[in-house]
């Protein structure tokens, strides 16, 4: 038994770990009597990749490319390869993953299982929108090859299916052409939710990437920085440099004192340097990847991330209410992000992204106090017909899940009997 935890570090628990080596070995491990869950790069925040006391199948050795059609931009690969490795391989050849989330250090299998989204949702939808085919290993049956054309029901269950429909062994992805790896970017300060919405709406046609950082401690009105970017044809060498958060401090360095200093300074600096600039794509899309192990700054107790999406009709009231609660509880974070999701309908039965506004925030783990706040936030989400992102969640109740994910019952039909996670036990009854 070895300890495993996810990115939030709120739960570290013993797992019996096996490394998936190839198809035969993965099929063999899956067909054993004991239940497990695939663990990719451990970048989901909650318990979607954890199975305390049970088995975890690590997929990091499944990192091979199977085929690459350079003419059509179709890449076939095993599921343990990271998005970063893929970008490093395909970008010099003029292609790029159409969707990548805040971190590139995630596996392709994880990107499918959580149907991740990025700052370009309004242009490209979610990761699942670009998956052409999935080879799904099943414990009690032959592997299923599913795609939008064949076995569509399995495809829809597996995209965003939090790894519960079988082992995603490999997949085919449609890449997108890209001229250059540098972006033209702008930062624009805003001081209300409605100005964020109008900025976002007016930017969507000309700017591929949009998202906003907000100061969740500003009491009176919402203030933030709207960031937008688009590809340029510039191809210039860029030396990736990253720093490592080398140790876990004994307490969270994200606290009331540091936040009250950081947020105004950050806002001020961004307002001061809001001119249009050229920026390397990873620095704009994956800024936190430059700080390795940044999750350690939350100390040994870890942190929770809360991410919800609220439909457009109810979003202004709901988000203001949530931010009010957070500000009142004095529990916000450096990382509060607002982003609009446009009219791409969810691909999978349990896909998160749907038309509306998404809000994401980190909270240092302060035990019961944080849980209480989450419970209040979840109620607001439920009442405003929103939903919470499973890739980030570890606290949602079964009742809220069933209310907000209406296809959850249908999803159960596609579960693999030999796969379970703490999340499946918590939300799906086993």
């Amino acid at each position, binding site marked *: 038994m070895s300890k495993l935890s996810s990115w939030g570090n709120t739960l570290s628990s013993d797992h019996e770990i096996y490394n998936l080596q*190839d198809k035969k070995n993965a099929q063999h491990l899956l067909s054993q009597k004991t239940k497990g869950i695939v663990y990719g790069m451990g970048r989901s925040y909650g318990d979607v990749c954890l199975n305390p006391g049970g088995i975890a199948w690590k997929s990091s*050795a499944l990192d*091979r490319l199977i085929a690459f059609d350079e003419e059509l931009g179709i890449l076939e690969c095993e599921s343990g390869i990271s998005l970063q490795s893929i970008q490093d*391989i395909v970008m010099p050849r003029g292609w790029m993953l159409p969707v990548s989330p805040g971190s590139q250090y995630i596996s392709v299998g994880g990107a499918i299982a959580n149907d991740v989204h990025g700052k370009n949702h309004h242009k490209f939808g979610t990761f699942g929108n670009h998956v052409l085919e999935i080879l799904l290993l099943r414990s009690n049956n032959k592997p299923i090859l599913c795609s939008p054309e064949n076995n569509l029901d399995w495809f829809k269950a597996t995209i965003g299916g939090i790894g519960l429909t079988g082992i995603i062994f490999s997949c085919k992805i449609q890449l997108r052409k890209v001229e250059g790896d540098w972006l033209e970017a702008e930062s624009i300060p805003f001081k209300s939710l409605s100005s964020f919405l109008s900025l976002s709406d007016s930017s969507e046609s000309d700017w591929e990437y949009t998202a906003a950082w907000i100061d969740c401690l500003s009491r009176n009105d919402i203030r933030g920085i709207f960031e937008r970017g688009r590809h340029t044809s510039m191809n210039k060498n860029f030396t990736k440099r990253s720093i490592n958060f080398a140790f876990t401090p004994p307490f969270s360095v994200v606290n009331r004192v540091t936040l009250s200093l950081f947020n105004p300074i950050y806002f001020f600096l961004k307002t001061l340097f809001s001119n249009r600039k050229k920026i390397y794509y990873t620095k704009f899309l994956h800024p936190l990847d430059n700080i390795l192990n940044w999750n350690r700054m939350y100390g040994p107790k870890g942190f929770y991330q809360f991410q919800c999406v609220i439909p457009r009709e109810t979003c202004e009231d709901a988000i203001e209410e949530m931010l009010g609660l957070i500000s009142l509880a004095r529990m916000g974070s450096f990382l509060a992000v607002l982003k609009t999701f446009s009219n791409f309908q969810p691909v999978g039965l349990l896909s998160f992204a749907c038309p509306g506004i998404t809000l994401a925030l980190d909270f240092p783990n302060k035990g019961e106090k944080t849980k209480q706040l989450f419970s209040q936030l979840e109620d607001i989400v439920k009442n405003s017909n929103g939903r919470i992102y499973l890739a980030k969640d570890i606290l949602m109740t079964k009742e809220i899940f069933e209310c907000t994910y209406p296809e959850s019952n249908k999803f159960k039909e596609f579960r693999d009997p030999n796969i379970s996670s703490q999340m499946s036990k918590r939300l799906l009854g086993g």
Partner: protein
Amino acid sequence: MKHQETIAILGATSTIAEHVARIWSADDSVTLILIGRNVKKLNIIATNLSILNPSAKIICKDLIFENLEAGEMLINEIFDYHQISKVLIAFGTLPDQIACQEDVNLAKDSLIVNGVLPILYCEMFITKMNASAPSLLALIGSVAGDRGRKSNYFYGAAKSMMDVYLQGVRHRLAKSSLHFCMIKPGPTKTAMTESLDLNFRLADPEIVAKEIVRGIQRKKSVIYTPSRWRIIMIIIRSLPESIFHKLNI
């Protein structure tokens, strides 16, 4: 024009060898000859390498290493068409120590596959390689070969056999241009170590491979990887038996 290099890897499906091959195949002028038992696995690895660098030439050859006659024929065939400048011998298995203690045939198989066969293949390559052209032979041993321990001494004995063999070969061919490298990885995250219940973190094969490639480039005779294992093994080797026997390692 850049020098064309041809490298043979025996046991190319081993995790460490696969990662080393990924680094070597980044060179456009390289030809990699991947040799292994499982042709299906070899092809999967070769396809990956060919996508990573379409300019590198990858050739797969299947071989049951125990069949020395077939091995000799394959090596002759390879040398008919290629001038090999580097050889990496990486095949091996991690036997169940207790099972080896109980079954002499298992123990024999383990000693053969982990010690005898790598040595014999190394010898076959030496006879074919051009002693006047700078070339290299590297064997993947193990830190387990530095001192016998109760938990894996059959494996360790075989690996230590390689060590002594290479010392002798190096002595014999000291004046030639052939270079010999003994690689001693610490416990690494591979298919081999999957079933081990260890209290410490296994090394990442990607990092181990990088260190091997760097060590080979610098013509090191012995490479401990990760490098901390050099210090650890100095300590373990120098422990007097009275203390060593009290340790549960």
